[in-house]
């Protein structure tokens, strides 16, 4: 009945959380890559402009003096490039003949200048083993002395660009990270909120009175409707079953007991008056068998009742003394042998237990009845006592008792013990069933000089009593 055996799959929350964080992670990674790409482009564009600007200024500054091409490089061009203070700059001015006018002789554009389409270009390149951006500008000279194309090549190392790219990317990444975090937190809140009805439904079903088999009436989102209606359908079926079983036991009780009572009535009416010796013997056998049948019927019904009630009746605080005393009154017939000393002893403080009075009474009746039938010779004592956290109902008789090796068997249904006449039937089985349903035990105390004791142990109820 307990959900211990339930296999726990991963929680819905966990599953959703994992998926959402996966999606968010992929998204963030894409965004960061994009940010890097855009940052790089932006940084290149910005620094390329400076580079080209410098190249153009330098190209502008070429002039022909006395028929010779001279480069008077403007400081403004270097100042422009000096904005990227950590970078090194290389330049080369090439005259119309393809000779280096000034600057680094080995600086070249990646695409040979002769093949360059545009008068201006910016390209990636490597110079002195370092990655650089290389720009070139073309100056067309139409002086009669010097005519043709002159070129200015300017190269710059990449550090400033990289720094800018890094900085831009870092800022974008921080933004992406914060956004992802917000999105994740929002999603988690949303999931929690969305899953709340499931939790509520669980609490409602869990907190139910075990015999309340009416449909669950909790407001749930549409998506949970099939689930709730399954629960309700199941409850409905369970309810029908319980009702059916209840009706069956009740019917069986009435249907069997009535003719059985009629039978005992007939036997009683018959009397032994007109019978001869053999007839009387048969008559007595019939009488014995009938009472055996009666007892067995009662025990079977009582067993069914006790099992049923264990599942369907809510336990409440009851006075164990009251229950035991009632059981005592029921179990001891008025017609009992007058030579037997029968007593009932109860403590002054009234121990309470959490229980079903009807089942407990049935259990105690059966234990007393068993003692009276199979145990008692001259003395039967019923005692209620409490100690520590437990309450006890003890039934002691001065009969031979049950030997310890048969104790386990005694509580089984229809167990027969050699020391006892006939079968103890279901008596102990009923008592044990009830004890277990109440979180208690049915035990035996070996025979001492006083007698043999059957002990029903129940947990003491410590709460408030109405």
């Amino acid at each position, binding site marked *: 009945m307990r959900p211990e055996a339930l296999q726990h799959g991963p929680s819905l929350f966990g599953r959703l959380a994992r998926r959402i964080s996966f999606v968010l992670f992929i998204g963030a990674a894409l965004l960061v890559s994009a940010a890097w790409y855009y940052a790089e482009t932006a940084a290149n564009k910005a620094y390329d402009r400076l580079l080209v600007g410098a190249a153009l200024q330098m190209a502008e500054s070429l002039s022909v003096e006395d028929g010779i091409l001279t480069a008077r490089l403007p400081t403004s061009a270097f100042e422009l490039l000096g904005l990227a203070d950590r970078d090194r700059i290389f330049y080369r001015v090439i005259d119309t003949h393809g000779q280096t006018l000034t600057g680094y002789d080995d600086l070249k554009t990646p695409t040979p200048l002769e093949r360059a389409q545009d008068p201006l270009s910016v390209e990636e390149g490597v110079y002195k083993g370092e990655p650089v951006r290389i720009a070139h500008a073309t100056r067309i000279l139409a002086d009669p002395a010097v005519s043709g194309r002159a070129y200015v090549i300017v190269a710059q190392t990449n550090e400033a660009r990289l720094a800018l790219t890094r900085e831009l990317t870092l800022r974008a990444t921080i933004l992406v990270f914060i956004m992802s975090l917000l999105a994740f937190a929002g999603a988690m809140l949303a999931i929690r909120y969305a899953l709340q009805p499931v939790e509520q439904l669980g609490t409602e079903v869990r907190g139910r009175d075990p015999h309340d088999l009416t449909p669950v009436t909790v407001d749930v989102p549409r998506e949970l409707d099939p689930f709730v209606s399954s629960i309700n359908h199941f409850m409905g079926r369970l309810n029908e079953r319980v009702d059916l079983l209840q009706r069956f036991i*009740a019917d069986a009780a009435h249907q069997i007991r009535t003719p059985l009572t009629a039978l005992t009535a007939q036997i009683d009416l018959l009397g032994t008056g007109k019978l001869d010796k053999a007839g009387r013997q048969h008559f007595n056998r019939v009488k014995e068998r009938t009472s055996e049948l009666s007892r067995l019927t009662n025990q079977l019904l009582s067993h069914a009742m006790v099992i049923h009630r264990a599942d369907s009746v809510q336990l409440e605080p009851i006075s164990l003394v009251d229950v035991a005393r*009632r059981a005592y009154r029921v179990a001891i017939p008025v017609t009992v042998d007058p030579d037997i000393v029968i007593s009932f002893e109860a403590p002054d403080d009234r121990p309470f237990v959490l229980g079903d009075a009807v089942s407990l009474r049935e259990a105690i009746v059966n234990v007393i009845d068993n003692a009276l039938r199979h145990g008692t010779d001259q003395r039967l004592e019923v005692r209620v006592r409490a100690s520590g956290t437990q309450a006890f109902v003890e039934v002691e008789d001065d009969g031979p008792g049950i030997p310890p090796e048969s104790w386990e068997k005694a509580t089984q249904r229809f167990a027969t013990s050699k020391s006892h006449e006939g079968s103890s039937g279901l008596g102990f089985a009923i008592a044990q069933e009830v004890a277990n349903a109440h979180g208690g035990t049915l035990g035996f105390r070996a025979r001492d000089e006083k007698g043999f004791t059957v002990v029903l142990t129940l947990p003491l109820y410590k709460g408030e009593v109405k």
Partner: protein
Amino acid sequence: MRILLVEDTHDVGEAIARRFEATGHAVDWETNGRDAAEIIDFTEYALIILDVMLPGMDGFEILKRIRKSGNAVPVLVLTARSEIDDRVGALDLGADDYLVKPFDFRELEARARVLMRRHTGGEATNLIKCGDIAVDRGTRSVHVGKREVQLKRRELTLLEVLVARPGRVFSKDELLDQIFGFDEAANANAIELYIGRLRKKLEGAKAHIVTVRGLGYQLVPGDAP
């Protein structure tokens, strides 16, 4: 005494009626619940033996009606029902005793007798004590200290006589008259038998029955003052 029997199973009704008539009681036997309920309204009975499952009106209904009208007649309920889902039992509804079918007819007779006696013999002061022995005449129960001891009718009557006047010596003849009345034939040996049983059942009590040679018996409270 007049007894109302409400039982719809013919065999059972017949057997019960015959048993009680044999011991000199007048038995009115009804098989229908509604008829029985009407009869109870205007007839006085010493005991009502009531079946639960009845045509017309349910035994529990009848019981509720009886108690509602303030009628204190002893009611013994016979039930064939299982208490599978009974929230309230017969006793909670005001029955004085109940027997589950099938029952032993001798037991029914004995229980009926107890009920009728309790009803007629109700005394105002219920508790009499002598030492650590206490006799409640209302519930007809006997306590030795904390222990409640089950006594048979005659043993109880005997104890009641002795407890009422602790220390007084009762002769056997006196006790014979008190316990058996004048109609029943019994001899002094019977008193010895009952005294013997009583002593056995009161074992462990400080108060005890003392035999006064040639005179009779007395109950003394024991060592305690």
